[in-house]
């Protein structure tokens, strides 16, 4: 895996993250489509995700929850807006309430994912735009930020 670029626009709270994998677009698509693979990477370290629903079709809905080290549960959802296998996915990702359904007042974030075949692999571009504070507050409250910082150090150590 090579991280090609990561662009942050603070005035617009958008992150564009580009990475390349040594695999075909179909194989990378599979880690998004197959919920048993998706839950192995969607949650941050120490916060594994469990997908209880994953309708990977246009207009489809996903429901998941992440479980923290002290048993904290953070439910979330996806709504698939547009899908073109194995090239493009547009979805919203938001916080769910205790019933597991989308929170009526919290704005979800808008995300898209593009896969392109390149020489020797696949380039994945993920764009996320944040419009609400709740995701971040949850990260801060659970201490996930600290976990992510540690993981970042570990990854940098591996790449060094």
């Amino acid at each position: 895996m090579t991280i090609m670029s990561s662009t942050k626009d603070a005035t617009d709270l958008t992150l564009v993250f580009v990475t390349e994998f040594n695999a075909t677009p179909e194989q990378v698509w599979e880690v998004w489509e197959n919920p048993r693979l998706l839950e192995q990477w969607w949650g941050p370290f120490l916060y594994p995700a469990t997908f209880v629903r994953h309708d990977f079709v246009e207009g489809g809905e996903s429901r998941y929850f992440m479980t923290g080290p002290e048993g904290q549960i953070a439910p979330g959802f996806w709504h698939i807006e547009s899908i073109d296998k194995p090239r493009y996915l547009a979805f919203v990702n938001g916080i769910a309430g205790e019933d597991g359904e989308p929170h009526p007042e919290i704005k979800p974030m808008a995300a898209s994912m593009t896969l392109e075949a390149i020489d020797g692999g696949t380039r994945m571009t993920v764009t996320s735009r944040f419009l609400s504070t709740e995701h971040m507050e949850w990260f801060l409250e659970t201490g996930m930020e600290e976990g992510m910082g540690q993981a970042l150090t570990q990854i940098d150590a591996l790449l060094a």
Partner: protein
Amino acid sequence: MSDEDVDRLFQALSDSTRRDILQRSITDEQSVSALARHYDMSFAAIQKHVAVLERAALITKEKRGREQIVRGHEATIRTAQGVLELFEALWRQRASQIARILATEKGKP
């Protein structure tokens, strides 16, 4: 930064005109009247947007003669940058986990 500060920050950045005003004031200080000329909006409407940005501490405003001069407030902009860095860290982690899964899956028949 308290929860209220963070809320104000996100709310201030949720509007495209305000993001544009902020972008202009980061590069160069601007008078409110000069800013207003860029938009198809009343001076009062622009003043309101400027006030929202000022409450979120994204810009600072000072009076100079009859003009109000605004400029981007670097510390707060860095905080917004920090929020994005947090999400960037999450995506780095996700990418490394995907790479691990791909390496394992490819070994399967």
